[in-house]
């Protein structure tokens, strides 16, 4: 992609490369014949060209991310599509999010019980599970689960639409695919991830309470009240701002890789994998930054 294709909805022109490579491999059937060509291509890409490509990719991503929000403020807003996506993303992800939240709470309680018991402060377990789930594990795990499930789904769906020219057809029919396809996905992912995270937090706390009461013999009432009391405004704020950011990352990254898929079904597969990897890694990295930033804002505990 180069300057002409700098907006993410312009059709890119890199399709030939991967196809020819594939054809070549298939027709010659020879790795030896194929390999020199591959290395040749690698060599041809100079560092500056590589850097330029990366910069363009970041630029394209930013345009897509920016427009996905800006589109909300101009007509038409596709509320039907937003609801449909919310159903797909939110309701569809509920089981995996619920299960992972529950068992994370269980594991968290089991692990901390061990350590806490050594110091004779088992009663702190509720606080530990509560702060851990609400500020970190709930948002991050839910984000990763939804990234695995939906960033890939978006990338493969939009990617197939790109390679079968459905995206071009949509533009030819006078509809902006960023508006019709990307914005609804971004909005509903942000919205749904927020609630999924809350559900995950609660189930994590519940998992912790099951361990505490059934296995460690603590009082359930005491568990819940100290879990509740330990949460300061900053914890809840941190825990609720994160899913908003993660949801935005998941949807924009998924859609970006989908919209820039090139080179047939193979390209769609590649886009899907890349979307999940990029979204997951970004979530973990951004989590670190956000945590640090909010600590700076609120001061240390």
């Amino acid at each position: 992609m180069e300057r002409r294709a700098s907006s993410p909805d312009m059709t890119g022109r890199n399709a030939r490369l991967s196809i020819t490579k594939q054809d070549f491999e298939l027709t010659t059937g020879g790795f030896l014949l194929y390999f020199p060509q591959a290395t040749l291509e690698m060599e041809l890409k100079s560092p500056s060209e590589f850097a330029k490509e990366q910069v363009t990719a970041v630029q394209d991503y930013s345009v897509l991310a920016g427009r996905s929000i800006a589109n909300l403020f101009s007509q038409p807003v596709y509320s039907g599509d937003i609801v449909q996506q919310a159903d797909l993303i939110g309701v569809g992800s509920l089981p995996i999010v619920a299960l992972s939240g529950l068992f994370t709470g269980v594991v968290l309680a089991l692990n901390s019980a061990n350590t806490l018991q050594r110091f004779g402060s088992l009663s702190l377990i509720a606080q530990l599970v509560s702060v851990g789930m609400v500020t970190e594990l709930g948002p991050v795990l839910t984000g990763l689960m939804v990234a695995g499930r939906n960033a890939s789904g978006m990338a493969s769906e939009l990617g197939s639409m790109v390679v079968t020219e459905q995206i071009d057809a949509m533009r030819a029919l006078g509809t902006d695919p960023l508006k019709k396809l990307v914005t609804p996905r971004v909005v509903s992912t942000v919205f749904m991830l927020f609630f999924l995270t809350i559900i995950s937090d609660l189930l994590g706390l519940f998992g912790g309470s099951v361990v505490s009461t059934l296995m460690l013999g603590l009082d359930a009432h005491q568990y819940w009240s100290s879990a509740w009391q330990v949460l300061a405004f900053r914890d809840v704020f941190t825990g609720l701002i994160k899913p908003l950011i993660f949801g935005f990352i998941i949807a924009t990254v998924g859609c970006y890789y989908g919209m820039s898929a090139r080179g047939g079904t193979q390209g769609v597969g590649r886009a899907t994998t890349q979307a999940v990897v990029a979204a997951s890694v970004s979530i973990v990295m951004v989590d670190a930054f956000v945590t640090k930033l909010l600590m700076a804002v609120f001061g240390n505990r």
Partner: protein
Amino acid sequence: MGAPPIVAEEPSRAIQDAASPVIVFEDVSLAFDDKVVLDGISFQLERGETKAIFGVAGSGKSTILKLAMGLIRPDSGRVHVLGVDITNMNQKDLFALRRKIGMVFQESALFDSLTVRENVAFRLLEEGDVSEADIEKRVLEVLSFVELEKTIDMFPSELSGGMRRRVAIARAIINEPELLLYDSPTGGLDPVTSTTIVELIIKQRDVAKTSSLFVTHRLQDAFTMATYGFDRKTNHMQPLSPSARETVPMCFLLLRDGKIIFNGDAHELAQSKDEYIREYIS
């Protein structure tokens, strides 16, 4: 076949713009990475005219249609469509302009998550100011135009390639566009289905008087288009008398190595002395 759903353009608009060409390419060049696909292409499409574009695979036919649709931008040169310069037009205006143009993609490009009804109605649903009953009526009209009323509740994956092309034509003509771009609508189809599709395109040309670019590999299709007219009484195309052929608004454009090597009517094409052209049309 139902009554022709496409009413002729209101005379006022036709007269007003009758003189101005619908598409103008001025010295348009385009390269993909290092590969030059179009090298200084200039041509015009007059109002009401149908221009058949030929060339071997990869000669840039689809690229010309995408340029005319503003889906890609030229490296140099200018593209005017329906009287406006779209070369550097912003996305928003392009989307508005595209609503007046219909395009049939090479591989149909139907939305596979939508039914035939939703595919065909896509434009009207998007425009939002048409009532549901009207949309349904229109969808049935255009589907009967392509003789596919029965498929209305099916998904594109349940249709054959030829049926998909016809649905794509229905989708393109639903809002009576001023300009139609057909990308290889008969490609890879059997002769019977191809003829059905060519007949539809002739019908669209003669009944609705829509201007169009028609990309094809099959010279035969274009000759059929130049020598047949649509007869409203029988609802089928009929061979034209030699004198009537003169008036068919049909011309040919042949691409080779990024350049236009022929641009003229059927008569001129048959007379051409150029060896490549002779070989191509034989």
